[in-house]
């Protein structure tokens, strides 16, 4: 067994981190909907199979997209919808021509996409009444189900869930990093506040959450990529753990930041809202744990 990222995987992750930091820095215009979709196509992120890569690499990209709080529908298109699509549709996705999402619980991601997968495998043009979600970069809506066409592919729930878990992992890591940076530089009572254990210990707790979440996410991603029979339970476990970890990481980071963390100006609330969206989209952590329990206690 070798549970370590390869050199190539580490390079891909670092390249994604650098590219995203350049295009989507913390001090960007957060109201902008510019998602540089054409550049994603050029990078090959919209069709990693073309480069001989698989879901583990997609999960690494999703982790980094979460770390940057990327605004576009990458997770919806590549993470959720892709397994439903035909080779031709995938080629159009790879070329950056189509953006997809899926209908979960009757309120799909509607804004910023072209098509929505609904009704167990029917594609609809993304038309309907948009509804703002907790994460403003992920506008939901009520789909107007007209002009539907059946899809060639299949549902892959473990893959979709693991995609959410991977993005949540990136969000958790960023919230932790922001908290650490603040605790090192913010002075009170003449010392960096990270000197005080009341501040540092919750950050240490977040670190353990992030490391454990990473282990579950990579495990689930590997199971999905390899078609391992444990993929469903691994994905449910990873998603329950990582999405909760992301929410908790943001909450602890906001607390560590004090007043500035509660402002609109500071970017932390963007990550918090992303974490809340991930935790709330699809089955919630408690439901996922009940699924795990059903599998274990049969």
């Amino acid at each position: 067994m070798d549970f370590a990222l390869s050199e190539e995987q580490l390079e891909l992750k670092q390249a994604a981190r650098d590219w995203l930091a350049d295009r989507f820095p913390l001090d960007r215009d957060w109201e902008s909907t510019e998602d540089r979709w054409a550049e994603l196509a050029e990078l090959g992120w919209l069709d990693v199979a073309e480069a001989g890569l698989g879901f583990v690499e997609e999960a690494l990209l999703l982790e980094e997209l979460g770390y940057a709080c990327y605004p576009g529908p990458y997770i919806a298109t590549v993470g959720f919808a892709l397994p439903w699509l035909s080779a031709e549709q995938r080629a159009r996705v790879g070329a950056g021509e189509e953006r997809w999402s899926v209908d979960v619980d009757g309120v799909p991601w509607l804004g910023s996409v072209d098509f929505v997968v609904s009704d167990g495998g029917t594609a609809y043009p993304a038309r309907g009444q948009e509804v703002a979600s907790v994460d403003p970069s992920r506008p939901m809506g009520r789909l107007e189900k007209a002009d539907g066409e059946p899809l060639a592919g299949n549902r892959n729930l473990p893959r979709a869930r693991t995609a959410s878990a991977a993005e949540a992992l990136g969000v958790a890591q960023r919230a932790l990093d922001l908290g650490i940076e603040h605790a090192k530089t913010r002075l009170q009572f003449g010392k960096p506040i990270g000197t005080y254990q009341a501040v540092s210990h919750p950050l240490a707790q977040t670190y353990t959450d992030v490391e454990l979440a990473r282990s579950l996410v990579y495990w689930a991603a590997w199971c999905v990529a390899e078609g391992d029979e444990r993929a469903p339970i691994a994905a449910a476990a990873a998603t329950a753990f990582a999405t909760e970890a992301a929410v908790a990481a943001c909450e602890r980071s906001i607390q560590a930041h004090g007043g500035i963390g509660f402002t609109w100006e500071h970017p932390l609330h963007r990550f918090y809202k992303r974490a809340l969206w991930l935790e709330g989209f699809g089955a919630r952590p408690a439901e996922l744990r009940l699924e795990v329990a059903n599998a274990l206690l049969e």
Partner: protein
Amino acid sequence: MDLRDTPAEAEFREELRAWIDANLPAEKRGGRGGAQRFEDPFVREWSRKLYEAGYAGLTWPKEYGGAGAPYSFQAILYEELAAAQAAAHVGVIGLGMAGPTIIAHGTEEQKARYLRPILAADEIWCQGFSEPDAGSDLAAVRTRAERRGDVYAVNGQKVWSSFAHIADFCILVARSDPGAPRYRNLTYLIVDMHASGVEVRPLRQLTGEAEFNEIFFSDVEVPVENRLGDEGEGWQVAMTTLLHERATLGFAFTATLDATVGRLLEEARERELGPRLREAVAREWIELQALRYTNYRALGAYERTGVPGPEGSAVKLRWSEANQRLTKLARELLGPEGILDDGWWNHQQLRSRGNTIEAGTSEVLRNIIAERVLGLPRSR
């Protein structure tokens, strides 16, 4: 990244499973740990069998009786022993702490003398680090090691020493130069527990058992050749011991948790549980998987660098809290039986309170993570 066993690992696992089935009687499975680890004579017999079959000191160099195997084999051993609910080798301190420290810092004579009997369970080791006034603050030890010609005269008191009452040797950290600065004033010694002036008193803990001991040293003469590392370098040598404790214990911790979660699942399957308890059971299973795969990631880093990564502190911290939660949960599952049962689960719940204290308190581990991993400023 490949989570499958390599052909060599798969072969090792298969042989090991068959060997455990052939050598571990059913009635010796599922022990409750605690004092049973040394009270049951079978444990020493079992340890010797492990040695004879080549399963003790798997990662140790061949010239000292080990198998020179990769760390992944050690991980497989822990997993399979946990799956069979088998007892651990009785030489926990020797295998996990004294041995690796001797391999790293010992002279050839010391390696030749001490290592093989550790593996064979012929000699048992204990650890003399903690003192009444030096718990988390190890550098504050007061036990003295005063050089008198060819010997050190050791005087002082150690506490929380597992296995001391059956031990043949003790790895001891003592203050050798009271005038030297902190971290430069300690010396690391191998002390013969049968030497004149060594007195062991059992320390009864809140479970009612005495797994730990106090050790009193009164003018105990320790030959200079029993020193590990240089005089005054005891802190650095001790750090090796603690590093190895964290590196190898992650799998051992997780293995015990694995066995306990397995038992929890058995209890859960026997009952009609509501969603709250079902969810709670799943939460503990998920935490176990998270720890398991964190160990694998740490193992990957360890195999590449030879130095345990920071994940070890996270695993110990989360393992101890998980064990406390799940023993509580098990007693809740038992319902009214929970308070009547003075057996396995009650013992586990009481014993688990020590988990967040022994081998680095949770508070110290959070400090280590904050300072050494996250790079936050020192709190003291």
